[in-house]
């Protein structure tokens, strides 16, 4: 699946961040290869969102580096880029699916406008083609294309999450960051969203970093896992290995409390 000799798509080296005196995350190293899904698990407050924000160019870490292999310009330090380049990267090569759809959608703009925004931001100027692309993406995330002109605040929570996903994938990114993508949804809605995500990731060959406190989510989506505790990575490995044969006592606790209720 991943090519051993290939450079990683994303690499974190010694990433640390503090909020004043409070530790966010400390000394995190990780590699993510093209087409690979990495799960980040740990209890609430363990530093998952902080790490994800650092990885996705939204929070400059106090120490450490985040390197990304671009399509055309080799590997770059994302915090060494100018803000214009960083934003371009974020809206072309990357996607970010927020836990709260309100942070990732324009609620006062129609579903079609939400999906089309990234296309327009990178220069699409043909209304008919933007609309056709938006329609195709709505269908792809199982939203009735007849709702293209409806505002997302008339959508259910599950539909809002799927709309967020369409809005991100429309520019065919290579890497998607997701923070608790199924958080706050009913169990049956979660299952449908996970199915959809799994299909999209496989079909599009997407790489993804998925933060969740729900180990069942990682079992379905992630190839590899990082387990975080108090801001540090305490264990990492292939998902099945970590979940079926956890080595660190903290991971053992997590697995036993969640998987054997």
């Amino acid at each position: 699946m991943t090519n051993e000799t290939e450079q990683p798509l994303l690499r974190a080296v010694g990433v640390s961040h503090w909020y004043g005196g409070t530790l966010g995350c400390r000394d995190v190293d990780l590699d993510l290869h093209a087409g690979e899904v990495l799960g980040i698990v740990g209890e609430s407050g363990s530093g998952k969102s902080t790490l994800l924000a650092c990885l996705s160019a939204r929070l400059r870490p106090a120490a450490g580096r985040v390197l990304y292999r671009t399509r055309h310009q080799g590997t770059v330090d994302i915090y060494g880029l100018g803000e214009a380049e960083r934003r371009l990267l974020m809206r072309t090569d990357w996607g970010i699916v927020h836990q709260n759809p309100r942070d990732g959608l324009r609620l006062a703009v129609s579903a079609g406008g939400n999906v089309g925004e990234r296309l327009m931001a990178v220069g699409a100027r043909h209304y008919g083609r933007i609309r056709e692309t938006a329609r195709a993406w709505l269908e792809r995330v199982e939203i009735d294309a007849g709702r293209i002109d409806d505002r997302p605040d008339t959508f259910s929570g599950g539909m809002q999450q799927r709309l967020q996903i369409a809005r991100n994938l429309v520019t065919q990114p290579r890497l998607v960051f997701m923070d608790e993508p199924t958080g706050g949804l009913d169990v049956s809605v979660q299952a449908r969203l996970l199915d959809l995500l799994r299909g999209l990731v496989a079909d599009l060959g997407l790489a993804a970093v998925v933060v969740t406190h729900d180990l069942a989510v990682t079992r379905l989506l992630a190839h590899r896992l990082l387990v975080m505790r108090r801001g540090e990575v305490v264990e990492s490995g292939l998902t099945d290995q970590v979940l079926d044969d956890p080595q660190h006592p903290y991971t053992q606790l997590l697995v036993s409390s969640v998987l054997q209720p």
Partner: protein
Amino acid sequence: MTMRGMDGSTAGAPLEGYNFAYLDEQTKRMIRRAILKAVAIPGHQVPFGGREMPLPYGWGTGGIQVTASVIGPDDVLKVIDQGSDDTTNAVNIRRFLARTTGVATTGRTAEATLIQTRHRIPERPLREDQILVYQVPIPEPLRFMEPREPETRRMHALADYGVMHVKLYEDIARCGRISTAYNYPVLVNGRYVMAPSPIPKFDNPKMDRMPALQLFGAGREKRIYAVPPHTEVKSLDFEDHPFEVQRWDACCALCGAGDSFLDEVVVDDRGGRMFVCSDSDHCRERRDAGHRGPEPEAVGQVQEI
């Protein structure tokens, strides 16, 4: 001293007890610095330390401060509101500036050196020796899509303007065409997206490469921006929904103009209506030159409304 036309006044002595054009010299210098910066970066909004004016916001205090900072004793001032020199707003501003400067005023676009406007650009093409000052209620074109001020500043800095097309997209999705008719957003000099103030989009093409200097003043938000002479001003649009100006089936009932911005007006108490030029000076100039519309004798009725 010369008379400047029918509704004009001659130059005279400014009001005692006030500085020329009301503002003190230090304030004018500060505003002029903001104007110079605005001219150097076409379409970019420059903050300025605005002064309280003896008129409420919404009465064009931003435009007045800009006008007061560039006006000189030899200027001939014209003030228009919705194309007319005779509305309360236009009369008050003209009177205020005339009293505090003593400059001559005129209703004639051709005679004016300095024109302050709300809602219209004169039909008569402006010249290099003229300055057009716009009164601006909301200077930020991105406000509608992004209410956060630090974020709009960043978007301008990075020319991150995708949301402007999202707004136009929403127009077409809702109405089948771009329904924005006033304050239609423009791209200035290929770089900054700018709000042209609430002029009809009919006037947008006049901004493009205009020989006159265009200055914009927003009083409440204390912003100045500018379009220097001969600068490209492009209205945003889509390839398959190109920018278009308003058109009318009728021509002006008084002067017969078929290419001016028309207002529909009521002419009698039986609900009779007609279309007439919104730019009253332009209409009069055409009639003086012998042009006639289908109801030329209705002039008096229209002016009474």
